[in-house]
């Protein structure tokens, strides 16, 4: 049987790593199940691992690269004794105590669990996606933009991440067509303006992709106009999808209360419906979804977990160092 930890943190984006910094500084020796490498945002470090310049994280006057920012968060948590396992949680049991969390090969036990599994990008849900991923269809503009020099590519979506990808991709592509299902963008003003005044970007409004064409390589996107029903083909060699995110909560189904979109419901700070289980970051936030709000909520979860642990019977009393929150 494995050792029972005080705090186990599932996920390692800004929320999970901030929770790790705070619980480590409170001598709770957190263990972080940081996830496994992938080319989606479901990976150690989370969504920022797929971004380039982060310009709105306070303290970085000139901006910082997403992966560099996450490296700093992680190093800071490690400095105070947080432990990391590069594995993905595959199951949990919150019905008995201590709580159990499984990975593919191991079982972990903890008195308190902080859930910070984040959200991952939605795909289009088209059959062609499986065939063409890595062959012109991409989940990671920063990884793959380079391979589309002087080409015409499409970005699907109308939010901030879609604008960021479109602008980033103009470094390589000759032309970027943004395909959006509405007639106006959801993106923030500053991102809209940057995209609108970029000569390489044009917009295809009221349009939804219904197929991605090509056998071995992307040859185009088939779109349908939502107003007229008319179908047409956009002749692109690359397709980047940025149509929003879905929370990574499938392993908590039936154990943690969620809203209809699958976001974990939190009450009174970071508490979930299970006493001793706390949630923070994008997994419970469908409103703000910023690195800085995720970090803030990670701090809340750490403080809530620490205070809750102090109220629990314990074989050895938890000796907290004087904290300077």
């Amino acid at each position, binding site marked *: 049987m494995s050792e029972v930890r005080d705090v186990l943190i599932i996920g390692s984006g800004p929320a999970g790593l901030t929770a790790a910094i705070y619980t480590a500084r409170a001598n709770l020796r957190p263990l972080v199940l940081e996830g496994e*490498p992938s*080319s989606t945002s479901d*990976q150690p470090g989370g969504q920022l691992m*797929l971004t380039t310049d982060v310009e709105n994280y306070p303290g970085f006057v000139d901006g910082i690269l*997403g992966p560099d920012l996450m490296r700093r968060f992680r190093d800071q948590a490690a400095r105070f004794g947080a432990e990391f396992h590069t594995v993905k949680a595959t199951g949990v049991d919150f019905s008995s105590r201590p709580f159990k969390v499984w990975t593919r090969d191991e079982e972990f036990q903890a008195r308190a669990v902080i859930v910070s599994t984040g959200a991952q990008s939605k795909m289009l849900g088209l059959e062609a996606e499986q065939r063409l*991923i890595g062959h012109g269809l991409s989940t*990671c503009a920063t*990884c793959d933009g*380079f391979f589309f020099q002087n080409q015409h590519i499409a970005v699907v979506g109308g939010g901030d991440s879609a604008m960021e990808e479109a602008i980033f991709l103009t470094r390589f592509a000759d032309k970027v067509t943004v395909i959006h299902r509405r007639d106006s963008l959801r993106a923030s003003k500053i991102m809209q303006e940057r995209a609108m005044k970029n000569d390489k970007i044009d917009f295809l409004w009221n349009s939804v992709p219904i197929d991605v064409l090509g056998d071995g390589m992307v040859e185009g996107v088939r779109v349908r106009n939502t107003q007229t029903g008319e179908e047409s083909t956009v002749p692109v060699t690359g397709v980047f999808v940025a149509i929003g995110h879905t929370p990574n909560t499938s392993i908590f189904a039936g154990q943690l209360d969620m809203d209809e979109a699958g976001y974990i419901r939190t009450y009174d700070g970071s508490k979930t419906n299970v006493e001793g289980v706390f949630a923070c970051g994008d997994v419970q936030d469908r409103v703000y979804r910023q690195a800085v709000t995720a970090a803030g909520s990670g701090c809340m979860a750490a403080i809530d977990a620490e205070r809750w642990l102090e109220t629990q019977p314990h074989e050895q009393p938890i000796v907290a160092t004087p904290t300077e929150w």
Partner: protein
Amino acid sequence: MATGITDLTEETFDEEVSSSELPVVVDFWAEWCGPCRMVAPVLEQIASENAGSLRVAKVDVDDAPGIARRFQIMSIPTLMVFQDGVPKKRLVGAKGKSQLLSELAEFL
């Protein structure tokens, strides 16, 4: 041949890949690719733990765009496994250690 991870260039690629008696796993990567950075330490572990059965090498697509074009790399990280210089397998996207090991099982 050393057990570490070899950097392949336009000049050395063919020679290194075809002269190897062991299968060569080639990691196409770049400095600016976040998922590539995450998968690098996993590949280092796999290389040192399986030094007797395979070699791991890498191609920086910034330095060697010709090799990337030749193998139609359009997404990184992409891993390609070569045996006697012939591509046998292609894995697109970053993956965790256990998943990579099971994908590479036939070469171990």
